[in-house]
């Protein structure tokens, strides 16, 4: 019999009234609940781990494996994936921070972000974990800026360090060796360039990709022992910075696929059409999963400038100070578990990382097998805080002013000195506004 007024003249068995709908929805919900992992059902508390890493090839899978191991070993705490891709992650967190509270009981951070969150009072001290594990005096010096009153407020989960990552097969074919000085590097790069089939080097240089452009550009000045700012004084027209940018321009003219975006360049690198990149150690994990052919040919050397310095960034895991006590305790139990040597070693090996937060966190046998890691291990570490001064809080705006002027050098052949003199003036003008009402 047809239900009056349903308009479709469906048999009663096929039509759905409000009660039917509610019943079926409830049944579906119950079935879905049954389908979720039993471990999540049994867990006393579920906490999100907010990160950009879930979207990264290799690293995301490594973290999923670590969570699975954690869940298998205990059933009190269930850690869930949450977050956004890297490009949006920092912005999301900063905007949340400005509103007074950030989401998630646990989150990964970047060097720039963590200082802002620390300053905003969003981070819970983790010193009790460090004391319990007895690693207080072994933690890398990069953790020093995360201490307030002697208590550390974040623990490193990946240290990324700059190095010159090159394709040894292309070097062998061209009959050149790894460069150890700037002059050698320029010659090597020129020798490796046979445009349009092969290019000696790539470094991001498009204003449409400002995040990566600035991230890597900073290292070019550091190779000459340059600092971009000290305290509130910009130093973009200082000699080491100028030297670094002149070198970039020389490489751009002689060895780069001009105007090429990062995705295309990465594909070219994976196909053996780009010989070198000045890039951080964490990127190697991407090649191991997306470019297995090139991976075996990868080698690294210290960025070949006179300083032998390499920007080193720690990415800490932090516990949210605004979370409930139960959530904080659950989050800390995960961090404590993760920081045990046997677990941290596994994390490093799954992520293909080579710079440990404390000596026991890496196995020597594993490190010896990383044929590509030599240059990353030898470079002298320098942190973003040391090269950016107080502008670490305004890193992107600082970078934008520099990149805008430096782009004139790249595409309009303006002398580096002139462009950086303008950038210096712009930054000095901007600093009055940026630091107005800003207290450290």
């Amino acid at each position: 019999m047809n239900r009056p007024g349903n308009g479709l003249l469906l048999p009663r068995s096929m039509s759905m009234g409000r009660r039917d709908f509610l019943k079926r929805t409830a049944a579906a919900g119950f079935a879905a609940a049954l389908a979720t992992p039993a471990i999540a059902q049994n867990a006393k508390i579920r906490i999100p781990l907010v990160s950009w890493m879930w979207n990264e090839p290799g690293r995301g899978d490594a973290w999923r494996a670590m969570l699975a191991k954690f869940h298998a070993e205990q059933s009190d705490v269930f850690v869930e994936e949450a977050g956004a891709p890297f490009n949006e992650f920092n912005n999301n967190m900063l905007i949340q921070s400005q509103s007074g509270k950030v989401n998630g009981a646990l989150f990964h951070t970047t060097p720039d972000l963590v200082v802002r969150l620390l300053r905003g009072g969003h981070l819970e001290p983790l010193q009790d974990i460090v004391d319990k594990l007895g690693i207080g005096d072994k933690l890398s010096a990069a953790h020093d800026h995360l201490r307030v009153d002697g208590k550390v407020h974040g623990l490193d989960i990946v240290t990324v360090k700059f190095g010159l990552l090159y394709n040894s097969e292309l070097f062998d074919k061209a009959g050149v060796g790894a460069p150890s000085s700037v002059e050698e590097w320029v010659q090597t790069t020129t020798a490796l360039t046979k445009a349009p089939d092969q290019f000696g080097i790539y470094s991001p240089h498009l204003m449409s990709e400002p995040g990566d452009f600035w991230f890597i550009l900073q290292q070019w000045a550091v190779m000459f022992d340059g600092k971009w700012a000290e305290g509130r004084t910009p130093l973009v027209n200082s000699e080491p910075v100028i030297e670094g940018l002149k070198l970039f321009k020389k490489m751009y003219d002689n060895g780069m696929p001009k105007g090429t975006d990062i995705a295309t360049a990465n594909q070219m690198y994976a196909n053996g059409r780009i010989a070198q990149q000045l890039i951080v150690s964490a990127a190697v994990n991407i090649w191991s999963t997306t470019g297995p052919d090139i991976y075996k040919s990868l080698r690294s050397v210290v960025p070949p400038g006179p300083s032998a310095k390499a920007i080193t960034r720690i990415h800490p895991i932090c516990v949210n100070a605004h979370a409930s006590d139960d959530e904080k305790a659950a989050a800390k139990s995960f961090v404590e578990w993760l920081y045990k040597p046997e677990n941290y070693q596994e994390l490093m090996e799954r992520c293909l990382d080579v710079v440990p937060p404390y000596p026991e966190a890496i196995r020597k046998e594993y490190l010896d097998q990383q044929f590509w890691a030599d240059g990353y291990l030898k470079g002298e570490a320098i942190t973003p805080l040391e090269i950016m001064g107080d502008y670490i809080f305004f890193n992107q705006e600082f970078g934008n002013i520099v990149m805008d002027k430096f782009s004139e050098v790249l595409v309009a052949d303006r002398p580096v000195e002139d462009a950086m003199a303008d950038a210096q003036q712009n930054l000095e003008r901007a600093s009055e506004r940026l630091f107005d009402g800003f207290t450290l």
Partner: protein
Amino acid sequence: MLQSEVAEQDRVTFTRRPWRRRQNSLAYTLVFLIVAYLGVFILFPIAQQFLTSFSNNVVGVDNVTWVGLRNYERLMEDEDFWFALQVTLTYMAFVVVGAVSLGLLSALLLNRKFRGRNVARSAIAVPWAFPEISAVLVFIWMCNPTFGVMNVFARLFPGIEQNLNWLSDPKLAMPLVIILSIWKAFPFTFLVILAALQAIPREVYEAAEVDGANRLQMLRHITIPEITPTLLLMAVLMSIFSFKQFTLIWLTTGGGPYGGITETLVLRIYQTAFRFFDLAYGATLGVAGFVIVLGLTLLFVYAQQRQDRARRS
């Protein structure tokens, strides 16, 4: 009216009252939902933006305070803002003229009867249906100075011996962004103008033909006047669309290659608020943009009213 009829009417009114009450409450509920939606998602953010523009809300500044008109004073003195406005107006002018002209031309051509007309009409609408991000990625690849197909064609021209650095060339970046924007936008104007052309009664043309009018005269004295309201609407809509355009410009040039050559006001707002975290000044730029779009909308309303009055008279 007979007494019995009056009594019957009263009875009917009486019996209908609860139904009416129910109907009224349903209407109020529906209106309330729309008003609540507008209030929460449109009016509140606009009000919040206005309020923020009178504060010093910058990520990192601890005490957010009322600063009066300070951000607006900064706006007036900000060379970058005026330059971005100039870039925006230039971009808008070219996109509006380009998209409407190309839309008109295509609509006139495809309004004629020929074999394969339906296929041609569908094909011309493809750029509009194509997702913006995919379109930009293909375009960037075409413009790649090393591998891009654009250089294959460019080098056929005498005097061009080296590959052009298309999107990084300060002289070429803006024209390319404009061309991409027109390519993406004109199918919309084409479809709307085509619909307007088809609404012109055939008899008018037949009468003009009998009177000895040639095709050009028919275009000038019949077609164009008949579709003028549509052209006006398209011009205003294209102005608003191009003013708001973000994705195409951001992904192709990011406002560069340098000096903000392709940085429109919308890009400037995004950079200020979400890359430099100067929320207050970003909101101030947003208010300036809001005023401009409001002006365009009012212009459209005025033009439409004028058209209506002219038609009525």
